[in-house]
């Protein structure tokens, strides 16, 4: 029985049957034989439900229409763009990249998984070109893909399409990252809440400091963002309640993913702040520890240029004295303290200074330190003190390499002694033992 309600136009009977005439589907009246309707002898490509023997890319079709996976991929690109609320221009660019990449010889035959990731990579490249801050990690999460695969496909795509996508700087990522933290008064207790704007501002200054102190280069961006936001939150209102919150608890409260690397970044950032905070004149000789530094962060950030200069000077003096007389650093301590009266005069204009770029200052004074080092006599310090005040942690905690054997000078055409070669060949007895052991092993494996 065919579709209910069909009537034969010739005889009016309702008995219409599905029949096939040489594989052409027809609807035929069972009583009079009239053909009610005919199907098509051939199907269009989009109607074919089963696969063909010949791959579409190998077929002889002249104007190749986009294959099903490409259409799906373009839809995926569009959907992701809508989720990320990208502009229309960016959506178009991403689609273009995807079309170009899909038809590129290095991508036409890869696995479906890679093609899915390719959609995300095109969007990532577009975002970077339009300075839209997004991390690769976010894109990986959206696609639910393997991060390594994402990296591989992204680099291949950039190479194949020859596009230039400058990586986003960490500071640009800060604002979007900050908005993920739920710290408004409606989410948390009033004492623990903080507005996103204040938090971003303070965290940006901390992040700049971290970048200058070599804590950002070469590292994952998200942990350092988390660390700077955490310290910003603590230092904006350094009450006991806030100080008692560990990083893990803070992430839980703000409903943000935990990370195992962020605590290390917090420690490193606190060390940098300690080094600067040590130079505060109103400390009056007491030690600045990572525990006490958080309360002083406000002051440190306001006067950070002056503190940086002072820290570099005292570091230079420490290096000079270290190379002249073996460790007696107490002499250098009074130095910065003497500067205290003069500092009060300069400290009255901190805001004007802090408005300047700290970047040039750091590099200028670094060369002063290097100059000081060369004056003091390079390479004669017995204890390996830092060459400059701030160094990348990979330099400070250098890996202890195993002792390299001295490279033997050989010509490559020397005589090879027989005894040496014989030492690499088994004796007959050994061979028999080995064969027996292997048999015993393989038979015991068969048992299991």
């Amino acid at each position, binding site marked *: 029985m065919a579709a209910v309600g069909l009537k034969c136009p010739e005889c009016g009977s309702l008995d219409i049957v599905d029949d096939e005439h040489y594989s052409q589907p027809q609807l035929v009246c069972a009583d009079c034989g009239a053909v009610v309707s005919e199907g098509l002898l051939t199907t269009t490509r989009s109607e074919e439900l089963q696969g063909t023997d010949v791959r579409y890319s190998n077929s002889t079709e002249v104007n190749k229409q986009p294959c099903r996976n490409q259409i799906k991929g373009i839809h995926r690109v569009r959907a992701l763009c809508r989720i990320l609320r990208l502009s229309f221009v960016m959506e178009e660019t991403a689609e273009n990249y995807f079309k170009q990449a899909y038809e590129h010889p290095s991508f036409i035959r890869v696995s479906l998984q890679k093609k899915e990731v390719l959609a995300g990579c095109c969007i990532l490249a577009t975002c970077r070109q339009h300075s839209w801050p997004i991390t690769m990690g976010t894109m990986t999460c959206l696609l639910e893909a393997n991060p390594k695969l994402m990296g591989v496909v992204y680099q291949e795509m950039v190479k194949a399409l020859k596009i230039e996508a400058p*990586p986003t*700087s960490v500071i640009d990522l800060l604002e979007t990252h900050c908005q993920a933290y739920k710290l408004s008064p409606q989410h948390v207790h009033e004492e623990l809440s903080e507005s996103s704007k204040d938090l971003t501002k303070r965290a940006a200054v901390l992040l700049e400091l971290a970048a200058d102190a070599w804590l950002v280069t070469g590292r994952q961006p998200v942990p350092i963002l988390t660390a700077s936001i955490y310290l910003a939150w603590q230092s904006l209102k350094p009450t006991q309640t806030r100080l008692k919150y560990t990083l893990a608890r803070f992430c839980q409260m703000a409903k943000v993913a935990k990370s195992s690397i962020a605590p290390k970044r917090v420690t490193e950032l606190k060390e940098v702040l300690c080094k600067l905070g040590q130079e505060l004149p109103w400390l009056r000789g007491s030690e600045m520890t990572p525990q006490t530094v958080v309360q002083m962060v406000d002051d440190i950030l306001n006067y950070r240029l002056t503190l940086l200069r002072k820290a570099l000077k005292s570091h230079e003096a420490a290096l000079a004295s270290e190379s002249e007389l073996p460790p007696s650093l107490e002499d250098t301590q009074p130095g910065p303290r003497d500067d205290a009266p003069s500092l009060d005069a300069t400290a009255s204009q901190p805001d004007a200074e802090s408005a300047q770029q700290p970047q040039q200052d750091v590099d200028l004074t670094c060369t002063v330190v290097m100059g000081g080092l060369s004056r003091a006599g390079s390479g004669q310090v017995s204890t390996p003190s830092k060459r400059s005040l701030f160094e990348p942690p990979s330099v400070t905690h250098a890996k202890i390499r195993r002792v390299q054997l001295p490279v033997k000078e050989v010509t490559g*055409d020397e005589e090879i002694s027989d005894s040496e070669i014989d030492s690499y060949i*088994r004796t007959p007895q050994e061979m028999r033992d080995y064969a027996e052991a292997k048999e015993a092993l393989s038979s015991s494996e068969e048992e299991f």
Partner: protein
Amino acid sequence: MDEGSALERYFDEPIETTQADSGFLFEGDLGLQGTPQLQNSSFLSTLSQPEKDIGEDLDLSFLPDDLPEESRGNAANVTQDSGLFDADRSEDFETDSNNAMPGTSTFCPMTPMTPLAPVAESSGIIPILQNIVSTVNLACPLDLKSIALQARNAEYNPKRFAAVIMRIREPRTTALIFSSGKMVCTGAKSEDQSRLAARKYARVVQKLGFPAKFLDFKIQNMVGSCDVCFPIRLEGLVLTHQQFSSYEPELFPGLIYRMVKPRIVLLIFVSGKVVLTGAKERGEIYEAFENIYPILKGFRKQ
């Protein structure tokens, strides 16, 4: 003399305009034209200065006729680290370089080819070779099972990999020996060590009863490393040298710099350590490092 005046004309014009005039072929984006000045300002100034001085002071009329091509080839070499490539020029350059330095010792770092101009401001740091990969053809089919049975230093797991893995103690190397008779030798610290190690492996295979020969020994890859001893701002380097660098801190902590001439890949880390790989000859590693050092140094002072 026509060649002499051409030479002086060449030195009078700044390098950038001669680039535009001669219409070098690009390898890379068209956006390259603007940036070479930025990238190479420090490098070009140091290297072109001595040539300019010499052009003014010395009377070059006695020099052989092919010198202008050589100098132009050399200047092309100077600008080529920014990725410009001219097929014709490089051919001239190579034939002249073969004439100019016939017996380069393997231990001498490659210097630019003008015999008159000394290398200006060499870095003083020589990369150390860490690994050499070479291949050789033993030219006889091998029974891997019998090799694994008879040799002490061999491992063979056909389900995992279709080759015998053999190691010798001196020079400390590893070899992959395939049943077709081809062999890959890795782990040596110099070309001669690699050759000696490959010969030892061939001798072991010979002693095991196969008629092994030693054909087509070729070095396929050399890896070197060194330390410039100052920290490097990778984020800045990737912005100025976008066409060659790839820096993804989420994927890998180092910056991957693909130098075009010589064709070497450099891994540059924030601590100042540099790894150079992809070379077929020792000189390529030295040349690549000499090319990158001014970029890194000029970058550090900015």
